[in-house]
């Protein structure tokens, strides 16, 4: 009796549902959440603009200190999509080249912050004791003042410029990564596979970096994506206050500050750089959120 059925049934259990692959989850999430897709598109667009900036800007020489008084303060037109500024420079070109500055700052800061913060956090959590406590106390000191104020102080005291901005923001930013790594490692530390590695005789250092680090990765990826946006915001704020990248660089924050004097007439001077910041940061945020869903769903 049962034999007749066994030939037709799939398993004794009955059919089991299929396992999903990571790419599938990624595509699904992007499909179901158009916002994340928008974020991805924006981010890719901005990165491409930054990379190919000098080649796609219609007036690349305007990114510097060129002057063309005949064309000053022209409203947006076919020739100058974003209009011209107070010394006749093409705003569109400056916005395009400005993307290089913002992304450069963000890139360096994140790299430094991760390279300094994550290992420190991992070491502090894994080794604990005096070393760990010491590192985290220092961490708290840096976290004691709001990022903007700290960065403003450092930048002004060292003399604002692009490298100084990067250093200043990195000094503020490593703390978050150290904290994040610290927290993650503390919770993973007790897990069985770490104990297994310990039992098998691997050195502490090795365990710290080989076993624990990969688990941090997904949290880090999300945070990095979101942070790029926040660092860009911070850099632009510094520029606006005159304590960041200095003119005549076409940094978006400076452009908004310079354009302020021409308000409300030459509205294009503040609107477009500001929009550039907004859209870029929004893109990274949307993408980061989407990544959060993807990486979270996998676990």
């Amino acid at each position, binding site marked *: 009796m049962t034999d007749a059925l066994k030939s037709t049934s*799939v398993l*004794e259990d*009955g059919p089991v549902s299929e396992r999903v692959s990571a790419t599938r989850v990624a595509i699904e999430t992007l499909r179901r959440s158009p916002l994340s897709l928008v974020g991805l598109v924006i981010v890719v667009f901005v990165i491409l603009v930054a990379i190919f900036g000098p080649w796609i800007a219609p007036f690349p020489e305007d990114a510097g200190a060129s002057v063309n008084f005949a064309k000053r303060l022209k409203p947006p037109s076919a020739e100058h999509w974003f209009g011209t500024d107070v010394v006749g420079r093409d705003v569109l070109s400056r916005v395009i080249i400005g993307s290089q500055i913002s992304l450069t700052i963000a890139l360096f800061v994140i790299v430094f912050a991760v390279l300094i913060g994550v290992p420190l956090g991992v070491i502090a959590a894994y080794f604990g004791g005096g070393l760990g406590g010491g590192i985290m106390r220092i961490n708290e000191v840096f976290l004691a003042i709001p990022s903007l104020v700290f960065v403003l102080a450092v930048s002004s005291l060292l003399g604002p410029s692009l490298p100084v901005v990067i250093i200043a923001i990195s000094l503020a930013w490593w703390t978050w990564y150290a904290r994040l790594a610290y927290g993650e490692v503390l919770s993973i530390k007790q897990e069985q596979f770490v104990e297994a590695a310990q039992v098998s005789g691997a050195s502490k250092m090795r365990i710290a970096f080989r076993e624990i680090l990969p688990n941090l990765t997904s949290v880090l990826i999300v945070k990095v994506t979101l942070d790029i946006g926040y660092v860009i915001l911070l850099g632009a704020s510094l520029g606006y206050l005159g304590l960041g990248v200095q003119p005549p660089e076409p940094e978006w924050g400076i452009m908004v500050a310079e354009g302020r004097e021409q308000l409300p007439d030459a509205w294009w001077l503040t609107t477009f750089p500001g929009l550039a910041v907004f859209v870029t940061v929004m893109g990274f945020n949307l993408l980061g959120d989407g990544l959060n869903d993807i990486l979270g769903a996998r676990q």
Partner: protein
Amino acid sequence: MTALLEVEGLEIGFTDADGAEVTLLRGIDLALREREVIALVGESGCGKSITAKAILGVLAQPPLRIKRGAIRFQGRDLLKLPAAAYHALRGPGFTLVPQHPLSSLNPMFTVEQQFFDLMNYQGRARVGFVDYWKPRLSATRRRDTRERTIAALREVSLPAPEEILGRYPFQLSGGMSQRVLIAMALLGSPKMVIADEPGTALDVTIESQINDLLRERVEARGMAMIYITHDLGIASELADRVYVMYAGRVVEEGATHEVFNAPRHPYTAGLLKAVPKVSNEPFAGIKGTLPDPKAIGGGCAFRWRCPYATAACEGVVPPLVDVGDGRRAACVRATELTLAA
């Protein structure tokens, strides 16, 4: 006696991420009379909880959807009731004794506060600003509610009810929490209470105390009860009638002692054999697990695990047929098989 609750052909499902239809409840029929206790028995995932939630009207729709069927309480189809009327039934009509006592009470409010809110606002879909404050500002009301709460706590055999009033749920043990929850369920003097595996999360001794309490209170107050469980022993102790569920359908129903003494469905028989007995026999189980709801198709959901399956089990979903003595079983071979308990 007329039926207090009648569930007819209830089908509940959802659309999964790929757009496919997944049917979790594939046509449930239940009947509950006044003062009757029925047990809903089955493995995890067979749809018992969903049935309970559907009756109570707390199903998460979306993503779940009630596709077909009727749930008649005192003659009225709940599925056609407007929300306010449905809500008005919660309390005086039916209530819930939940499965996880430790997480079923809000941790941020004391027992007294939660009882106060339930007593004074029960059954209303919304409570307005004025209606909220009126009872709270009246000293007589507060005192009155307090006394009734203490009485309710005493009814469920909680020692020192006055102390418990001021406690937060995390300060109560599992057994005490469950008693509190039972007291809450009895508050509105409902005609029917649904107990969703109330003892599962508790120690066995506590569990049996809770079950005794439930049975005693339900009987004393003349209530009907649907007791959901996967434990056949408890079902046989508490219930007048039992409904055995498998993969979203009722596969057998009838008076408890009859069903358990002489089951007519292979699944019921398998369950009974799986109950550990004090003997030297090895454990018996039913091989395999519940099938994927999407793959059941047009045949009996049990066919992969059934020792008596034939090719006939493939083609048609076996309907619940009368097998005599007011019992029904959903098996095409119900009449010909003799199953040992």
